């Protein structure tokens, strides 16, 4: 199997070199969530691709959402060539014709991709997760479950949460005794939503809300909160690079894919599609984990990931026990209604 993979990589490299002459001056405009992920993607994916094909990258960062892409599409002047997207945005963008359809055949062997990580318009680039973290130097006992996050008696102090019902509602239900498997079934009923808000009420006074991903490790570092909901890569980055005594709790982690999509009106769509194919190869896909703790979305890539690194990944068996995959379709259907109730609840 390894040889066939190597062959595959080699043929791809040849292909890339063959086309490099005609694309020598091309620059791809890439939009990502910035921060630690962009830095990692630059090292793991952009620089090798530039070496192989001559295509250079100009990066821009954003906070997610489809407003800008939609506006560019309406103005018929799309300046982006490649976008890093969350699942719900990737689904909506595909439905609304904002993304180019992706030809799965160009990816080669795809049977080892985790189910649901290749869509009609986009290809998953990695698996990331929402977890919660604490400062080991400040808490006397170590919290181990999502119940501990809601337990103010055992673990006094403020809690940092993303100002969004997503993940927060799921955790409230799980902490209230709902099995992670049934969480969306319960959340789909009005009684389930009430139940989640009732559980959140118990810690409401102690919640500090954050909006952009970089704020989460910052809140913890500032001592503004005792525990903070965060993206696992950011916490790992703070712990490894900045030597912060942060520990992640993986119980009831809510994981999601991150996607590459090519805008319908992209000017360098071919080069962008080639880039997606190249970074989706097992070796390249695994390379990202050298720089940030996000997992490759395919099983064949795991062999290239450093053994010690595996423990930091959302998909590591030890971390994956009670993992919940975010149900993007549920949120696409219910985001409006639940968001509104969430807004009201916030100000009550």
């Amino acid at each position, binding site marked *: 199997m390894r040889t066939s993979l190597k062959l595959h990589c080699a043929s791809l490299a040849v292909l890339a070199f063959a086309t490099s002459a005609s694309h020598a001056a091309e620059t791809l405009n890439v939009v990502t969530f910035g921060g630690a992920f962009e830095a990692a993607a630059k090292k793991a994916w952009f620089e090798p691709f530039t070496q192989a094909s001559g295509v250079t990258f100009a990066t821009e960062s954003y906070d*997610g959402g489809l407003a800008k892409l939609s506006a560019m599409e309406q103005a018929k002047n799309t300046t982006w060539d490649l976008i890093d997207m969350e699942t719900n945005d990737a689904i909506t963008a595909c*439905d*609304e*014709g904002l993304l180019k359809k992706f030809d799965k055949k160009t990816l080669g062997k795809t049977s080892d991709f985790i189910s649901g990580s290749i869509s009609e318009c986009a290809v998953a680039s990695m698996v990331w997760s929402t977890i919660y973290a604490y400062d080991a130097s400040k808490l006397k006992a170590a919290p181990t479950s999502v119940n501990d996050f809601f337990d103010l008696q055992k673990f006094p102090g403020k809690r940092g949460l993303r100002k969004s019902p997503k993940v927060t509602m799921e955790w409230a239900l799980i902490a209230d005794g709902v099995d992670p498997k049934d969480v969306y079934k319960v959340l789909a009923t009005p009684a389930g939503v009430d139940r989640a808000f009732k559980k959140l009420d118990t810690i409401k006074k102690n919640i500090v809300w954050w909006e952009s991903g970089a704020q989460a490790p910052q809140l913890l570092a500032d001592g*503004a909160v005792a525990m903070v909901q965060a993206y696992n890569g950011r916490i790992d980055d703070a712990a490894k690079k900045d030597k912060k005594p942060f520990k992640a709790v993986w119980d009831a982690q809510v994981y999601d894919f991150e996607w590459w999509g090519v805008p*319908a009106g992209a000017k360098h769509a071919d080069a962008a599609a080639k880039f997606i194919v190249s970074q989706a190869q097992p070796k390249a896909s695994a390379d990202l984990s050298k720089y940030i703790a996000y997992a490759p979305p395919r099983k064949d890539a795991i062999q290239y990931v450093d053994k010690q690194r595996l423990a930091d990944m959302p998909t590591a068996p030890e971390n994956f026990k009670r993992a919940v995959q975010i149900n993007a379709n549920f949120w696409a*259907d219910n985001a*409006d209604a639940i968001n509104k109730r969430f*807004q009201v609840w916030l*100000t009550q």
Partner: protein
Amino acid sequence: MPASPHARSPGNPGNHGTHPSAEGLATAAARQTYRRVQRHASMRALLLTLPLIVFLLSTFIAPIAMLLARSVQNHEMADGMPHLARALVAWDGNGVPGETTFALLAADLKQARESGQLGTVARRMNFAQPEFRSLLMRTARAVGDDTPAAWKPALIELDARWDSPETWRLLKRAATSPTPDYLLAGMDAQVIPQGTVASVPDNASVYREAFLRTISISATVTILCLILGYPVAWLLANLPEKQSHRLMLFVIVPFWTSLLVRTTAWYVLLQPGGVINSLLSMLGLTSHPVALIFNRTGVLIGMTHVLLPYMILAIYSVMKSVSPIYMRAAKSLGAHPFTAFVRIYIPQTLPGVGAGCFLVFVLALGYYITPSLLGGAGDEMISQLIAMQTNTQLNWGLAGALSAYLVIFTAVFYFIFNRIVGIDRLRFG
């Protein structure tokens, strides 16, 4: 040649109309020439200002008008499913429509799915009712596969919601444009099935309170700025020049510093382990950190600091032009310094106070970054909700409606300030 009124005197009717006198003709010609010259002159003047007018129209007025127009437009259905939309507009809206409409629904769903517009329609329908999106998507997938003998029973069998008059009523509403729906939603109201306007249930009512909160935060910030800014402006205007210039730097330098930098600086100062709390606990004044951030206190401190220079500069510029002679005169006539200050000095500075208050209040209405960084859950200002509708919900109609209300509020406050102070008396800088 002077125009002669006698030439047209009523006593000389014979000349009227049929045989105008030579003199009258000449006058008319002169008048015409004069008018032409005048018109040319004003045209030239207009041409000079034309670039400015075009600039204003294209970069300021047109975008705002387009945004406001979005608040009543409702084009998603008409664009994505044109045949069904037309049929629904013509439909009387009672019960569930017949087979023809169902067939149009099936055909349009299929076509919209292929053209990539189904997502837009589905998103639009989801604003009206949760899970409408999944209903449309599911139906569209099923419709692509085969063609049944009759669409109505087939679709109802697929999903019972197609048999509900409510579903069709919502579709009909979404097919109508323009509609007041977004404007109503921006005020937490909706059209109920009976056809009248009613408030939405309490657990879905967000915007009215957010507007009140925005106005109350802006008003508090304005008052705080006035209380802090007035004495500083007085000091600046009355100190010897050298000292006042030095003091002015303390006002100007923060004014030149970026809003984001200043907000972040407050974030560092106010947080539980921050400078202010460390100082308080070092002095033994508090045992627990005081909550200065992630609440209203943080928002008010941050916004007041950012907006204070506007108030100070507006008042200062007016105070600079107040002649000291009046105060001296009042005192020499026996007035107590305090009475003289209140009755002689303050009234003369009112235009500056008005300008400052108006400026601070209007700027505060649209604040976004400071409340989102320093505020807590109960301090969301309306601009944060507009940003959410624009960026994450993609409900640009509602975002347009909320913006329209914000523009209207600003206009109303402008009108009130104009009545009280007189905008023509305002002076900036």
